[in-house]
């Protein structure tokens, strides 16, 4: 491989970066050159080495000796000398996947912790100056909140934006250095993603170099100048984004063509209703009418905050219902608790895997059988052996890659964690499966397997309500898509489903803005 020249137009170059984790090569001699003022996307599945690369650049993970990092026209620095302080001094700014923001503190305090508190007389914190500066930043980034708002009061999307603002706050006039964004849009709704991407383009035009890591290929294609794809710790290629198609990227990432990623649509779905929802109200929902057919995947298209998550939670008895009726298999269904919903044969995979689904610290086995322990308890004995063989079967059935069923679940990759959560519910053969963002933080390969699992479940008679933010993915994975806007279902789109049309329908201004909800 030819050595990368650090010319004047190179903002950042890495040469021969490797990382071994206990005998396993997570990153294999990576060469990367990022030009000044470009948005350079770094793509790859879980385990491809992109997060490792970023952690090495940030100085938080030591690379194997031998590699070099070159910033601007400066002298190369050996990776063994690289520290977070050096990375910061060199102008590298990071916003990580799970940004280290402090939910209990105000926005102003969060920003000040990224820079410093302005001081007044006697070294006291000058809150007025801090709040003024914060207000200015919030306005520039169009975050509608007061500087004193605690971060916890913001939705996840805005928290993420504050983290980005925090990283950028002291470099708004700098054209040196590199802004590194690790999955910044993972929790953002489509409208805000676009807003953020616009801002990033603006920065790039002003000379800011951006290294952009994302799972979302459409974003990458829309924002990046060049794309580097990693697979299994090695660089597949660096290519110009111009003229590149999503299918090309998927093929580079996964190493197989697109038509094998999303399974073919099912043969047919019956007209029989598995679940009928009439006038369901509560929270942001003002009267939902929806029929779920047996064996279908019914997608719900809606922006974050449209009430899509609340709808699923209501159907699972985990969110207060104000009115309306639901039937399940023709019988009245009024779940007042998750227990009742589960008993009726409804399953729910929540949006936030870490916060609401995984039992971290517990084994894969326990995570798989969680909630069903009572079925292994007979005659005052816990049937561990039966539980283990069931867990093994589930691990095989649901394509979960583990070393052992006793390993803690948090040691699995994101995709496999999600498959554990899916398996936990699918092994019960639910009548209705409610899925909220089942592929969040999951790479393309595992995503394909998750959709395979969903298809297999529908073939066995499960009906699925699916919430996914990405219109492209929703269009591919659903048999029909209901558009949720203004607390109501506005349209149901039948196959063939066009992703662009979905985006339009989701974002269109509500027709009856002034209408009072009944």
């Amino acid at each position, binding site marked *: 491989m030819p050595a990368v020249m650090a010319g004047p137009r190179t903002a950042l170059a890495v040469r021969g970066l490797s*990382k071994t*984790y*206990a*005998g*396993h*090569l*997570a*990153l294999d001699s990576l060469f990367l050159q990022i030009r000044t003022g470009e948005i350079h996307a770094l793509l790859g*599945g*879980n*385990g491809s*080495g992109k*997060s490792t690369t970023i952690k090495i650049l940030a100085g938080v993970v030591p690379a194997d000796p031998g590699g070099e990092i070159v910033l601007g026209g400066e002298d190369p620095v050996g990776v063994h000398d690289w520290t977070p302080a050096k990375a910061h001094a060199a102008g590298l700014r990071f916003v990580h*996947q799970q940004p280290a923001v402090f939910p209990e503190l105000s926005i102003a305090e969060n920003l000040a912790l990224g820079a410093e508190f302005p001081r007044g007389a006697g070294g006291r914190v000058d809150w007025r100056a801090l709040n003024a500066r914060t207000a200015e930043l919030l306005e520039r980034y169009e975050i509608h909140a007061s500087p004193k708002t605690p971060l916890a009061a913001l939705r996840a999307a805005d928290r993420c934006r504050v983290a980005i603002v925090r990283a950028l706050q002291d470099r708004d006039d700098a054209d040196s250095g590199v802004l590194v964004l690790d999955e910044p849009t993972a929790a953002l709704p489509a409208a805000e993603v676009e807003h953020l991407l616009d801002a990033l383009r603006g920065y790039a035009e002003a000379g800011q170099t951006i290294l952009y890591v994302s799972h979302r290929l459409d974003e990458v294609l829309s924002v990046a100048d060049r794309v580097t794809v990693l*697979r*299994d710790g090695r660089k597949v290629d660096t290519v110009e984004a111009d003229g590149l198609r999503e299918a090309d990227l998927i093929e580079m*990432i*996964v*190493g*197989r063509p697109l038509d094998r990623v999303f399974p073919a649509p099912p043969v047919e779905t019956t007209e029989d209703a598995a679940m009928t929802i009439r006038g369901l109200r509560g929270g942001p929902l003002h009267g939902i009418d929806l029929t779920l057919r047996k064996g279908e995947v019914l997608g719900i298209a809606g922006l974050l905050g449209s009430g899509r998550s609340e709808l699923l939670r209501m159907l*699972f008895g*985990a969110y207060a219902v104000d009115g309306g009726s639901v039937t399940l298999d023709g019988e009245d269904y009024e779940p007042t*608790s998750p*227990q009742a919903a*589960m008993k009726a044969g409804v399953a*729910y995979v*929540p949006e936030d895997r870490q*916060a*609401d*689904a*995984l*039992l*971290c*610290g*517990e084994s894969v086995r*326990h995570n798989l059988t*969680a*909630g069903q*322990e*009572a079925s*292994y*308890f007979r005659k005052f004995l*816990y049937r*561990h052996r039966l539980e283990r063989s069931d867990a093994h079967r589930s*691990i*095989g059935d649901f394509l*979960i*890659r*583990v*070393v*052992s069923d*006793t*390993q*803690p679940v*948090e*040691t*699995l*990759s994101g*995709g496999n964690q999600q498959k554990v959560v899916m398996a936990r519910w699918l092994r019960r053969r639910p009548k209705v499966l409610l899925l909220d963002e089942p592929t969040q933080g999951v790479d*393309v390969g595992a995503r394909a397997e998750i959709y395979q699992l969903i298809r297999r479940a529908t073939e066995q008679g499960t009906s699925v309500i699916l919430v996914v933010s990405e219109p492209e993915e929703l269009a591919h994975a659903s048999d029909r898509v209901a558009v949720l806007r203004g607390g109501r279902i506005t349209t149901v789109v039948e196959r063939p489903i066009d992703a662009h049309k979905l985006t339009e329908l989701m974002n269109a201004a509500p027709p009856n803005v002034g209408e009072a909800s009944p």
Partner: protein
Amino acid sequence: MTTRSRPRPETAVDDMPAQRAGDPAVVATDVPVVVQTEEPPARSAASTVGAFGGRVLRQYSLVFLLVASFVLYSTWGKTSSVFLTGDSLRVMVAGQAVIGVLTLGILVTMVAGNFDLSVGNIAGLSQIMTATLYAKHGWGLWPGIIAGIVIGGFVGGINGVLVTVLRVDPFIITLGTASAILGFIDWYTKDQSIVNGIPAGITNFGRDNFLGVPDIVWVLALVALVIYYLLEHTPYGRNLHAIGSNRAAARLLGIRVERSIAIAFVINGIFAGIAGVLMLARAGAGNPQIPPTLALTALAGAFLGAASFKVGRLNVPGTIVALLFLAVNITGLQYAGVANWINEMFTGLSLIFAIALAAVLSKERTVKKTRKTA
């Protein structure tokens, strides 16, 4: 070293570092390695052995320390003459019975992510109430014992209801009940010990041996078995683990979180009541002065126990080893001529050590977690 055949098969290969993290399990279990569509990750034998060694070292470090301290006090000139005698060992282990029962009881609430700082005072209350029922109200042996246990469960129930209904930090609630109990005991007993009228049956039980082992140590062993069964071999125990791991997820799994926690406090209280009865049996008199460090010692034992066997997880065998470790060292140091203050000093330092260790272990876990996202 990594010898991987190139090119890799055409599947998205999930994250190898994660598999590394679970590595020791490969050695430990005969469970088949489930890896689809790809060759198993290549590993050097040396690193596998190293990981295995590291795991054993960590899992059993407290056991090694226990054995080492035992050997030390058995051979050290200052202590060897008294330490390794039947009587000395019996006294040492019997001295751990009360605190042991408290510690095992507190595990039940701690597994579900709660604390109970009032266990020591609950035990004290049961002790003094049982003594009073015997001495002043002429209750029989068994009714008195049962009353002591029921009182413990009742106070535990109050804790549980306050924690789950008010949804206040159990730390604060139980600190409050602990103080209230002390006040009640002071008022009720007028700070008078109850020396006369304790049935011989109970005082003998506190002194007698069965098969060379003190009766109350048998009780401790029985309690350990019951708690072990409850926490690891019943759906209820597994639910408590789930609640402790992720309360929101537990709720969405249909686990009745509040009810389970309230019951955990009742169980905790019941075992504190049993500890109270054992206190009375050992002392032979009702004492209104409750040792202030009981709950802290129980916490130290539980945390220290989480550092062995199932590392990072509160567990019964680890707790037993931790209790023995504390007992051997405190007794040994006392025999060596160190004054009584060593008791509280050693317990306090062990608690800090255990918590620091837990912090380090959880940090290691986060490191593994971040590796996973590579």
